[in-house]
């Protein structure tokens, strides 16, 4: 079939096709200059989603690597402090061994007592070491000096206080006898309250024995009369003998709110002020890693088969001062146990560092894989793009050449 070719057809066909070539030429040019296969989500929607997911994973991996870096420094410092503590104990044991013999005299013992006194001071300094402003050995109470002299002979209940977010109007005091074995933080939280016309109020409350991490619902309530006081004995069922007394101090209705918190520290015997909790960060998806070594485990007798290192050193000093050779001898075994205890924890640090090392290697591999995957999807294969580009260039040149000849040949050339 013969087609009628009108003037507009010639131009339209030429221009449409030239545009098509130009547009793919430009697309390729964009890929070359940006070096990217995906320059906007519509270039490859599925690829884009993949890239975003990979990038998010990579961001997490990098965060985990940063976390691991922080833990490693913490553990390295902890390890060095612990081995220094181990050295101190060896010295103490040498002293004890030397001074327990009959050759030692009251004078030498008294001199060595001074030396042991020094050791105790150094031991305190080590146990109270800080890294980046936080105490290494106070558990999660990292702002609290973990060890303070003198030793607590009795269990102690600290001063009760209201949380900073509470508004004033009520004073709280603690009383009672602590019956627990380790340091704990007790918290009372107002869950529901009722204001009475006579300025008295009643409230139901929850209690917690672990600083507020888990709550025990008591369904109990107390009533605080205007200008009066009320005591909660044994803080519900969690208090281990601790009583809290609330005293009205001109409280107004607007002063009370749900979630108002009152807390009290309960301290077991010994030097330790921290707690037995471990600090942790994520070193993988949903993989918390406890990086702190509890001072309770390291230095006190609260752990399984542990001895209280500072007490033993103190006993040694007293035995030396009082020239008590049996007392000195009895310290040797304990000092040995103490050394073991420190070594055990030092090696635990080592284990943790190893674990971090493994995690770090895995994450570094993963990071590399992810970078590769991202690059696979989003980066342009320059060789391929360049050769396509060269092809398009030839095509474009050809269409320009053809376009320049359009209309050159018509019947007009032959009509004179």
């Amino acid at each position: 079939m013969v087609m009628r070719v009108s003037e507009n057809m010639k131009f339209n066909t030429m221009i449409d096709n030239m545009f098509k070539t130009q547009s793919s030429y430009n697309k390729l040019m964009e890929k070359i200059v940006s070096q990217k296969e995906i320059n906007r989500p519509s270039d490859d929607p599925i690829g884009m989603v993949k890239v975003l997911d990979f990038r998010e994973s990579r961001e997490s991996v990098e965060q985990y690597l940063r976390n691991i870096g922080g833990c490693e420094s913490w553990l390295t410092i902890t390890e060095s402090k612990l081995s220094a503590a181990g050295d101190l104990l060896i010295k103490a044991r040498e002293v004890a061994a030397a001074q327990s013999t009959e050759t030692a005299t009251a004078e030498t013992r008294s001199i060595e007592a001074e030396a042991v006194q020094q050791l105790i001071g150094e031991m305190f300094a080590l146990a109270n070491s800080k890294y980046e402003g936080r105490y290494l050995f106070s558990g999660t109470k990292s702002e609290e000096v973990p060890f303070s002299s003198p030793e607590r002979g009795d269990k102690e209940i600290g001063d009760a206080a209201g949380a900073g977010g509470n508004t004033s109007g009520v004073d709280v005091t603690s009383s009672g006898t602590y019956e627990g074995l380790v340091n704990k933080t007790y918290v009372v939280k107002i869950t529901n309250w009722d204001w009475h016309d006579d300025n008295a109020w009643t409230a139901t409350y929850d209690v917690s024995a672990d600083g507020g991490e888990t709550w025990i619902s008591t369904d109990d309530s107390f009533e605080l009369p205007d200008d009066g006081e009320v005591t909660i004995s044994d803080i519900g069922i969690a208090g281990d003998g601790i009583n809290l007394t609330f005293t009205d101090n001109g409280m107004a209705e607007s002063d009370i709110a749900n979630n108002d918190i009152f807390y009290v520290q309960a301290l077991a015997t010994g030097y330790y002020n921290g707690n037995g909790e471990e600090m942790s960060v994520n070193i993988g998806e949903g993989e918390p890693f406890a990086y702190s070594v509890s001072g309770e485990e390291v230095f006190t007798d609260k752990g399984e088969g542990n001895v209280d290192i500072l007490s033993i050193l103190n006993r040694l000093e007293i035995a030396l001062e009082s020239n008590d050779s049996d007392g000195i001898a009895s310290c040797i075994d304990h000092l040995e146990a103490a050394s073991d205890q420190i070594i055990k924890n030092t090696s635990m640090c080592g284990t943790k560092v190893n674990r971090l090392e493994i995690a770090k290697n895995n994450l570094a591999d993963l990071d590399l894989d992810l970078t590769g995957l991202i690059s696979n999807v989003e980066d342009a294969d320059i060789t391929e793009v360049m050769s396509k580009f060269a092809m398009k260039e030839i095509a474009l040149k050809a269409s320009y050449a053809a376009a320049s000849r359009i209309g050159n040949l018509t019947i007009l050339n032959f009509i004179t």
Partner: protein
Amino acid sequence: MSISALNTAKDALLSHQTAINLTGTNIANVNTLGYTRQRPVFSTLGQSVEIVEIERIYDRFLGAQINEQMHSLGYNEAKEKEVDRVETIFNEVDGGGINELLSKFWSAWEDLSANPSGQAERQSLISISQSLTSMFHSYSDGLLSVQDDANAWVQGLVHQVNNYVSDISDINSKITQTETDDVGSNTLKDKRAELLSGLAEIVDFHYFEDSNGLINAFLSNGMPLVEGIHTWELDVVTENHASNPSFYDVVFKDDPENVINGVITSGNMAGFLEMRDTTIKGYMDSLDNLVASIVDKVNTQHKQGYDMSQSSGEDLFVATKTKAKNIEISAAIIADINKIAASETINGDGGNAVSMSDIEDELTMNDGKSTFSGYYSSLVGQIGQDAADAGRNVDHHTTLLNQLTNKREEISGVSIDEEMMTLIMYQTGYNAAAKIVTTTDEMLDVLMSLVE
């Protein structure tokens, strides 16, 4: 006898003169958009000749097909225009968007978990949260401005439709007056075909030409736009739109209560309406959904923790502002960064910050099937897919339209070569007729000299 030959020659001269004029018109309009070539129809008149009609060479069915493609092309072009702008807003190719800020937000919690009392960590968490919220605001503003743009288009297009409709009815009325003059009415018909195809780009409609040559056009549900010389104008009303009172609804001017947005199913206007009311609104809803879940999840976790003064955590995000356009960090926390509840207990540990950063990997969206980031990336993917689809559809319909236009040009377009050939043909006819005149003249001279 001789006189009759002169008359015949005169008719032939006149007819060929007209034919040559027509060739001139065709050549003059070789580049006129929508011009339909015209052809004289010679016919014997007794022993003489006349031009009975000047014919427009066109294919009625092609016109309808082209208009149909114009509907689809207009529809997809409108969608492409707007979705391209949305794509620019959500272009995360080089990072720096919500995806990255979300990751950084969770990372900031990780950093805080490693040093829960650190002022620098707290400050950086607040800064990142503020960047995140302002990024949400700017995305939401961007989407809103695209919606506003589509909205402005709807209003503008309604005016255009009215102009087209009144122009078409004008031409209808002129055609009734000039039906006798072929050249004039052919030009008008060309113009009207152009107007119809312009209207076809905006809205979809059916039309037919009645026995008097008048065009009647109806919307998809049969409501008339033009009937002969009568027109029904469109208008826009505000205040009634479900999602935004400033959005225009399309109505007929004489029936402002009856919204006809749904009647317009193709063309630019349908594209803009769909983008404004469905597509972009969908993106906005997804973004709001994400924001609401983040606010809820983060606030819930934050309230389980304790701040630096042993108080329970408060809402980190203002609980009443759960949309992308207004998500906000609690002013009390910005004023006092120690109110960030990083601790699981009142002892100042970093447990709650760890739990907070764990939210990143929780399957919180889509009924527990995807994470926040996953949900967001699939939104970006969706937008990319929509943009790619719109682009592909525009390409597809452009190609079809070009083919149809070429088909029309093949039938109706002017070919210089052809016109030159017909020019030679008519010139030859004219010259021959003139020869008849001179020959007859000579014959008459011979006859006259016989009489002398």
